[in-house]
């Protein structure tokens, strides 16, 4: 698993006090003014459109046809597999599963990670336990554990989502906690406490808003990792056998022994994974950049 691209030091350096200076609207304007940010966002939008309108773009892959293992042509843009099914249709339908799992798993990770991170940042007693649990989770070999769990439960889109989400939260928690610690040491938090605000109110109304930009970045990065995890598990045969996913197209190619003779069956789903992960990562990095006071002359 890749390390989070936003380091704790960087996160801590991003003082929340600078947030109001970079207004939301101008932040987005800065984001889109960079070609890489614009391109990444465009790729993500196209992917989402593909996923939503998959039934309009291509029929759900199924059945058999005599056009077995045809290379890419006008009739079959991405070629066909060993049953004669269209790879383009499989990639388009695979976008649905990959995006769904990516987004849903990252939401699970964000909710868990933010809750644990903020609680650890503000409540000292929670911190002792929360930090240890987070460290233990970070030290676990995630991939073998996910393989193990996926083998026990019945593979489906939802079980995969939960498994991936549950293993992705610790990095988010650590990130949120480190910035939460900076924020909770600020004078205005002391002020809120003096005025009699409850712990719950301080965490949800004062600290949470200050870490929201960091959460947005985390969503993108976690989602891209989740997409890779899903493809990996599906490739190992632990995915949902009823849902098309990019990993499953690769698995089909590997299992039927056509990797050497049908390059199109591995190239196009791999490109799709690359594009999505790259776009999400670049978008996350650019978004992180616009909050960085050093880059904005703040």
């Amino acid at each position, binding site marked *: 698993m890749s390390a989070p691209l936003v380091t704790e030091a960087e996160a801590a350096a991003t003082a929340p006090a600078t947030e109001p200076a970079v207004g939301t609207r101008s932040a987005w304007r800065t984001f889109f003014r960079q070609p890489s940010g614009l391109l990444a966002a465009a790729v993500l939008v196209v992917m989402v459109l593909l996923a939503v309108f998959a039934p309009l773009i291509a029929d759900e892959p*199924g*059945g*058999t*046809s005599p056009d*077995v*293992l045809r290379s890419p042509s006008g009739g079959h843009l991405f070629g066909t597999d*060993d*049953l*004669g099914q269209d790879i383009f249709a499989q990639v388009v339908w695979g976008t649905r599963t990959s995006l769904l799992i990516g987004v849903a798993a990252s939401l699970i990770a964000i909710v868990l990670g933010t809750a644990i991170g903020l609680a650890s940042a503000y409540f000292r007693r929670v911190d002792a336990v929360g930090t240890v649990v987070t460290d233990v989770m970070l030290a676990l*070999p995630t*991939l*073998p*554990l996910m*393989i*193990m*769990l*996926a*083998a*026990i439960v*019945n*593979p489906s889109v939802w079980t995969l989502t939960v498994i991936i989400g549950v293993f992705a939260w610790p990095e988010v928690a650590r990130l949120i906690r480190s910035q939460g610690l900076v924020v909770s040491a600020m004078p205005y938090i002391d002020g809120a406490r003096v005025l009699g605000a409850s712990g719950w109110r301080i965490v949800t109304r004062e600290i949470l808003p200050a870490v929201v930009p960091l959460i947005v970045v985390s969503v993108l990065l976690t989602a891209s990792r989740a997409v890779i995890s899903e493809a990996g598990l599906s490739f*190992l*045969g*632990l995915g949902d*056998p*009823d849902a098309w996913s990019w990993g499953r197209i690769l698995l*089909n190619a*590997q*299992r*039927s*022994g*056509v*990797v*050497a*003779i049908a390059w199109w069956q591995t190239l196009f789903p791999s490109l799709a994974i690359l594009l999505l992960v790259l776009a999400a990562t670049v978008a996350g990095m650019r978004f992180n950049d616009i909050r960085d006071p050093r880059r904005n002359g703040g």
Partner: protein
Amino acid sequence: MSRTFSGRTRRWRVAVALGAAAALGLSGCGLNEGNSSSGEGSGGDAVLRVGTTTDVSNFNPLQSLSKTDSWILNAMYPHLLRIDENAKKAPELAKEYTYTDGGKTAVFTLRDDFTWTDGKPVVAEDVKFSAESIMKYKLGNVAAKLTWVTSIEAPDATTVKFHLSQPYAPFAEGVGFWMSIVPKHIFEGAGDLSKFANDSNWVGAGPFVLESATKGQRYVMKRNDRYPLAPGGKPAVGKVEFRLYPDVNTMMLALRNGDIDLMGTPVPASAAKTFANDSKIKLAKVGALGFAHLTYNMNNKDLARQEVRQALSMAVDTKSIISSVLQGDAREMSGPISPIFADYDNTEIQPYPFDPAGAKAKLAAAGYKDGDGDGLFDGLDLGVACDQSNANITRVVQLFRESAAKAGIKLTNECVERNTFLSRTKDGEYDIDASQWGVFDNPMDQLRSTYLSSNPGGINYNLLKSPEIDRLIDDAAGTTDPAAFATKIKNIDKVVHEQAYLTPLYVENFQFAYNASKFTGFVASPSDLLGMVTAYSLAQVKPVG
């Protein structure tokens, strides 16, 4: 077999093993790089390198064996009989066998020229010891085949007599083919043979004997210089080396690159054209001794109904499965008896036609209703379990699910990781089992292991308990007259077909690829378990030139 662990515990154990295997697998990549040894070599020192996908999991030939286990151990430990290229039994250690005493005694006459690699001759006492050990410790699948044995005699060095409690027609065939003969003077000192690992200092009497084993990489076997079934009394190849390639794509590339000389596992039908333009690589085609099937769990309330099973049989398009998934390289079947057993296959019965509309009408007549108008019968939701690593079966399940939907039957694809699948199969946790039977050497043993309620072979995947079927099978088993026996088998074929306990899918042809510019003389036997790497075949192989 003791069942100490509950299904859940076993599943955890499987999962832990899987996790560990995955972790190890990551570090195991590229194990086959940088091999310096090569298949070249003059005359008697030639090394035949065979690709395989799995490690040897067990070196004790008396226990149940996986594919790689049986390739290596069958080359070391002789069997009384072998299966030849025409799927018929042929002599190996035994010259011949006869029945006396009204079919209640089977007498094997052994050859006198087999020798263990430590110099001692292979004698009748070795056969007696092997069979008695299997019975004592209930080892492997052979134990079930020795059920009727009351005593074993070895009156001289080349005669073995099995006394049976009742006549059982295919006794000698089954035991002769499946039972490994082990050296008594080595194994008797090992104590409890169910716990004997036999993982070093091997002594064998086959054409090759293991010299070294490196888990995850290779198994090297050296020639037995006294093997009477090889031309000239000893194999022409000096060493056989099994190399591990967990992925079939890599194995095919290794063959093309000249890293191996033979693929032990068959080439997938879809990938056969990989070798189309390679003049050095030849493909040998053999039939199967098993078949692919959908088997229905009778403990499921819907599947317990004959109409539902028949409707499901009508919702599988076997013809299109054969033409697409197997590229036409397979035969259709109608009942549970494979056309390989031509004498016993009931040719009067016809496969259920592919007719989704007819299946729908059948289910409607049986009282199933589609109240919510979604095109699927209410409450009829069945899972199809399969092994995710079997390329053909996973494709079949995918197509079956689509065609069954047209008949109003909702199927859920439950193809899972192999070990999970095996443990679920063992615990009966499935509705429909989609899998492939490897080797049935005779129809009687097949029917006994798949349909008897006592489940002696452990593969009654129907979990069928039918007094009627039990009676028919027991009746046939005790019939010694060959013609009457065949008639009874044909009748069971018909009954099982009418009941639709299973939907047979296809009998596959297997293709084995080898480097014909280096080696020649393979004698391929049917099935992917035997294929090109039987003891007999390895003994006949010779280097080219």
